[in-house]
């Protein structure tokens, strides 16, 4: 049967074009790949190549014709043994818009594609899929398990965050031979911040891998190893340097599971100190919680206590997804009780009520908790009983715990070191507005880092960071005591 040659679309947005020139004439033999015509769009002149071989039987659209719609038949190609008499029976090489089968026909087993392909060309309209294909389904709700019970009588061991992180990695490396750590100075030097102290001695150079100073490269190498099934822990000396690697973290690690239809993912942990240390100025002092929390396909953890650091890092290493694990240099040396258990793993995605209270809710995470906790103590002395929630995980965020608290206290203050615009606190405020508007007795207040690059001068640095007084002032504001 003769084949119709259709006006092709040559870009995602082309709807029509001019048929500027025929390079073959009726009766010419055509091989696949031969240029048969030139068409002109608003952007460029393009060549039309024959896809089938045959003889050009009839030209349906003369050269010089303007405004030829995409998918209009422009010529008929005769196949071997056919003559111009057969032209009437021509069929399109393939129908650009397959007829939708009768939907009421219950016997039709296959859902038809309708005009999915053709739709894509209606570029001036709004995206086709939304128009008729119904609304987007609701995002699935997830609820993390509760923290495991700690048996009564369990010994609590005062442990620094630094030791807790190392213990978590060592335990997981003992448990699973596929777990390894790579990063700058993690092996011979024992860690730039001594988080990997002793790991080289116990696990050897194969599993504790010093890298050159090439964040982009080794982040990608880690993701590739994870795609192959290993369980890498990639240490960034600080997350400030991870900006060199952010393409690999987001485009390669976070999106692969989705782009592969669930076939391939990247079970990897990116960890290291995040946020301001002390007097290291703008390029070394930034909180990335809000940045990474923006991205579907990532989990983002930012612990405060040593117990959470240990339990959540173990969970992160076991997690089949890419996990951003944001630590803090100032917290490394702080000591907290850690339960002495053989396998202490905490659920990612679960907030922890750090202090019970009834008058106002303070939500924070990571080093922000140090301001929140001190503020709550001082407020208690002033007769305000604040509830303090440690988010622990930024993504997926446990809004249920936050909302439950806000519905009780009717007031909320968020605390973080990151910049104010598009901050974690901004997201929390928005969620509370949507889900607990009627419970609010005051607007949600945010305490954040100031909207400036981190200054070096000691006095300015202090001003740029949140502080306890700002948290107290915010709580006073939402409780109308100021």
């Amino acid at each position, binding site marked *: 049967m003769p084949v119709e040659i259709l006006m*092709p*679309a040559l*870009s*995602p947005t082309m709807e029509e074009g001019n048929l500027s020139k025929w390079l073959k004439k009726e009766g010419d033999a055509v091989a696949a*790949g031969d240029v048969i015509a030139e068409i002109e769009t608003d*952007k*460029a*002149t393009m*060549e039309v*190549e024959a*896809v089938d071989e045959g003889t050009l039987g009839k030209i349906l659209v003369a050269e010089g014709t303007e405004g030829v719609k*995409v*998918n209009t038949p422009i010529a008929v190609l005769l196949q071997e043994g056919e003559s111009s008499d057969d032209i009437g029976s021509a069929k399109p*090489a*393939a*129908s*650009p818009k*397959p007829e939708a089968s009768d939907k009421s026909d219950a016997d039709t087993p*296959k859902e*038809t*594609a*309708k005009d*999915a*392909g*053709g739709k*894509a*060309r209606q570029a001036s309209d709004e995206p086709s899929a939304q128009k008729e*294909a*119904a609304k*987007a*389904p609701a995002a699935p709700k997830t609820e993390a398990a509760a923290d495991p019970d700690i048996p009564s009588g369990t010994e609590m061991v005062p442990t620094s965050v630094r030791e807790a992180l190392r213990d978590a990695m060592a335990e997981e490396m003992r448990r699973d031979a596929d777990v390894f750590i790579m990063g700058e100075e993690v092996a011979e030097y024992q860690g730039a911040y001594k988080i990997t102290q002793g790991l080289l001695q116990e696990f050897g150079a*194969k599993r504790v891998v010093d890298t*050159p100073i090439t964040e*982009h*490269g080794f982040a*990608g*190498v*880690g*993701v*590739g*190893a*994870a*795609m*192959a099934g*290993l369980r890498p822990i990639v240490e960034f000396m600080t997350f400030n340097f991870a900006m060199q690697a952010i393409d*690999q973290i987001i*485009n*390669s690690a976070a999106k*692969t*599971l*989705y*782009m*592969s*239809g*669930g*076939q*391939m*993912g990247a079970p990897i942990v990116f960890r290291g100190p995040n946020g301001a240390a002390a007097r290291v100025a703008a390029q070394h002092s930034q909180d990335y919680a809000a940045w990474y929390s923006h991205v579907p396909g990532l*989990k983002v953890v930012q612990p405060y206590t040593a117990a959470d650091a240990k339990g959540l890092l173990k969970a992160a290493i076991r997690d089949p*997804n890419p996990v951003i694990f944001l630590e803090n240099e100032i917290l490394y040396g702080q000591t907290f009780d850690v339960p002495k258990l053989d396998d202490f793993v905490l659920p990612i995605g679960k907030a922890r009520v750090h202090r019970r209270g009834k008058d106002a809710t303070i939500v924070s995470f990571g080093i922000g908790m140090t301001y929140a906790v001190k503020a709550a103590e001082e407020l208690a002395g002033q007769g305000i009983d604040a509830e303090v929630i440690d988010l622990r995980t930024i993504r997926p965020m446990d809004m249920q715990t936050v909302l439950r608290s806000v519905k009780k206290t009717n007031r909320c203050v968020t605390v973080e070191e990151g910049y104010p615009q598009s901050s974690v606190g901004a997201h929390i405020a928005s969620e509370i507005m949507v889900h607990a508007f009627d419970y609010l007795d005051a607007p949600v207040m945010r305490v954040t880092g100031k909207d400036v690059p981190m200054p070096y001068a000691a006095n300015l640095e202090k001003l740029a960071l949140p502080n306890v007084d700002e948290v107290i002032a915010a709580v006073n504001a939402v409780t109308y005591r100021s």
Partner: protein
Amino acid sequence: MKAATKKTSAKPKAAADSAAALKAPEPAEFDKDQELAAYRGMLLIRRFEEKAGQLYGMGFIGGFCHLYIGQEAVVTGLRLAMKDGDQMITAYRDHGHMLAMEMEPRGVMAELTGRRGGYSRGKGGSMHMFSKEKNFYGGHGIVGAQVPLGTGLAFANRYRENDNVSLTFFGDGAANQGQVYESFNMASLWKLPVVYVIENNRYAMGTSVTRSSAETDFSHRGLSFKIPGVQIDGMDVRAVKAAGEMAIDWCRSGKGPIILEMQTYRYRGHSMSDPAKYRSKDEVQKMRSEHDPIEQVKARLIDKKWASEDELKAIDKEVRDIVADAAEFAQNDAEPDVSELYTDILR
């Protein structure tokens, strides 16, 4: 002229030791079955790509679509040199690689049309497809990003102490990305089993190599990292296979990474919407008529009387039927269910 100056100029001594010692092997001698296999493999890619171009023109395929037409010998020859277990990873001009790795034409084409029967259930598209089963690791849309990833696959091979090799493909354009050299450094430092296949098709989108690259001999790009490399006629599937065997053996025997610069050519534009005005029609026509990888095999088959025109036509018919079936499936398969919007974000 350039080549002549290169030969006479003094090369750094260390580089000469590691790299210049390596010679491109003679093209492999193919027997009848190998010639026929290569012919069929390359033809499948060509016909598939022609059909993809057609479906794009008809509006069934959206977004970006980069065709591999002209470069078929590179992936076909290298596949013939690989063993099962070796991995492949490439950028966004990836349809040919998937077919060479024996992924189903239906699944690939249905992914191009964004249907549920596609390899990524319609969620990846032309540039993002994977098959764990077939050891194909994508399909990556960011120029050069697959190079650290492919190096990571090699890292995993070494870690697991298996003898698999990662074949990491990238173009002459990606060869200027910084992360490529970060990867070279680590791969060489750690003796990772990775073959870096630089598909030099002469144009990074619309910029010719001479306008984008200070060193246009891409086989030398690893010299500072002590990675040897050779230039290969990427239009001759026998030359590609021989080079592939040499390079894979190199990696498998623990010598670390190696670079194969495959000198090839794409007949079509960078993507479907590229009118390719940066090169002359004569240049394209000359490559097609004098160096076409498929025609070369065809000529040998006929010349040696290993196949008649009719027999080759029968192969063409068989390949066309496969492609037509894939296209038919890809046009009629349903779009993904809307519930797929929120699946596969996290495990």
